[in-house]
């Protein structure tokens, strides 16, 4: 037996503890979400009617299954608020991801063109803001965008506007916040693929007479598609369920699904509807999630 195989045996045992943990605290909880999404709302603590009780035996269990209520899901489908919330979440996520790609690509491209020594520095500079608190970064923008904030003061001083512009509680502010918070997630995978690219390929295309935009469009961009895919998924999936940024920066007239879930849960105390909203959100994200997992796995395990 090769030493590699011998090494693998105890390594497998290392999986036990994290495996049990993740089943207990990641997989099982989804079962509870599903269960409660199918139960009735009740004014009680906790605020839902129990659907079934595992200790009550098989017959009651069968009866309980027959009485499962899909009413919460029907409510989600029929109430305009929820339909709008899902549509808005998807529109916001698609728009924001497109913006992130447009803004992040040139930055990642510039990084990949830096001399090797400076590339490491640039990468650290992009990562560091990711380490500072998410909430703090949104708060920093509230400082800038508020009525008498820095942005309005600058615009007024330059006589670009005659009176302060309302930035806060607008979609513009929300998009600024999202792009700001997620930019490192877009730049890093893009940079990773662009930095690995062979510069000779671009040079060859250029030597053969392609103008720069054609070199980019026919050579650079297609070769960077794996990075584009990773960056897009890494941004799109969490943005769909985003809560903090739209809550603090966007107006309250059009809610995203993360906000309605939060509202149902904390304000209306309607746990079953909140759970149903979570299940629908999960279903919407299932395909991108699976795509992302395959990508992640391929990336981390290609050396095996």
């Amino acid at each position, binding site marked *: 037996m090769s030493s590699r195989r011998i090494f693998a*045996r105890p390594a497998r045992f290392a999986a036990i503890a994290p495996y049990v943990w993740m089943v207990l605290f990641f997989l099982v909880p989804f079962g509870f979400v599903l269960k409660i999404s199918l139960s009735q709302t009740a004014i009680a603590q906790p605020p839902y009617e129990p659907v079934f009780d595992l200790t009550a035996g098989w017959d009651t269990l069968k009866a309980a299954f027959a009485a499962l209520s899909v009413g919460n899901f029907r409510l989600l489908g029929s109430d305009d608020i929820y339909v709008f919330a899902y549509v808005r979440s998807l529109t916001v996520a698609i728009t924001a991801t497109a913006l992130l790609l447009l803004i992040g690509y040139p930055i990642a491209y510039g990084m990949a063109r830096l001399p090797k020594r400076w590339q490491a520095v640039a990468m650290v500079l992009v990562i560091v803001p990711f380490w500072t608190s998410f909430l703090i970064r949104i708060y920093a923008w509230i400082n800038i965008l508020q009525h008498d904030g820095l942005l309005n003061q600058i615009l007024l001083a330059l006589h670009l506007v005659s009176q302060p512009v309302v930035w806060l509680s607008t979609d513009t502010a929300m998009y600024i916040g999202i792009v700001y918070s997620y930019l490192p997630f877009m730049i890093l995978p893009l940079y990773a693929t662009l930095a690995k690219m062979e510069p000779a390929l671009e040079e060859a295309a250029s030597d053969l007479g392609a103008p720069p935009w054609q070199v980019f469009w026919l050579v650079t961009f297609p070769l960077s598609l794996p990075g584009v895919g990773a960056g897009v998924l890494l941004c799109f999936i969490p943005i769909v369920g985003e809560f903090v940024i739209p809550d603090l920066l966007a107006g309250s007239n059009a809610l995203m699904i993360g906000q309605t879930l939060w509202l149902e849960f904390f304000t209306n105390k309607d746990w079953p509807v909140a759970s149903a909203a979570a299940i629908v959100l999960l279903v919407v994200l299932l395909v991108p999630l699976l795509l992302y997992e395959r990508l992640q796995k391929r990336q981390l395990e290609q050396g095996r």
Partner: protein
Amino acid sequence: MRKVSGLSRFNIASLAFGLAFLYLPILILVLYSFNASRLVTVWGGWSLRWYHEFFNDRAMIEAAWMSLRVAVASATIATLLGTLAAVALSRGERFRGRTLFSGMLYAPLVMPEVITGLSLLLLFVALNAERGFWTVTIAHTTLTMCFVAVVVQSRLGSLDRSLEEAAMDLGCDPVRAFVAVTLPLIAPAIVAGWMLAFTLSLDDLVIASFTTGPGSATLPIRIYSEVRLGVKPEINAICTLVIALIAVVIVIASLASKLSSSQGESAAPL
């Protein structure tokens, strides 16, 4: 030959824009935390007034203390579990349930936090667990161990495996080979993983809001409820302190990885 590589003016402009965009808002926030004026937009001279106010705000201090305790505890457990998971995935070859295992580890990296938070809360309610320090710690551990696993796994993947094999050919059993050879080599990644877990926990608002109980708010929860009421200079001071803490953590992390990574290139922190 026409040279395509090398920096064009467009490259430099986009880099400059990117860095300014990433850093200016934070710098402005830090600057205004030292502003003597209550009006956030008027510069009233340098002052530590808002820091003073923060240190006299008992509720804020308690929240900060709670956040620090949760961050240390959850980062430590997460580092342990995440490292084990990374070892199993990158050295365990094939085992039963591997696909489910890696699936459960990668999904929380992008899973919207409202879903993770809600599902964990429903579990805690079903178990009739008292919500507070431990429920938040468990929730944060579940999220952050996945990040640790990815950081450590990418380091393990780039290691030269003949080193472990050499140790075993020289008579080490697998466990000894791991402790003596592999562990020192992945130490920088483990340190980086702990730091990442620590800052993610310190930062989290959504999952903590779901899983905490009455009377044990974390710092982000308190900041969030203040921010909803509007801009307050005291918040600028708190944010600056958190940024300073995280900066210290990053410096320690990079020093630690520099010290121990002379053997090879260090793992990317993400």
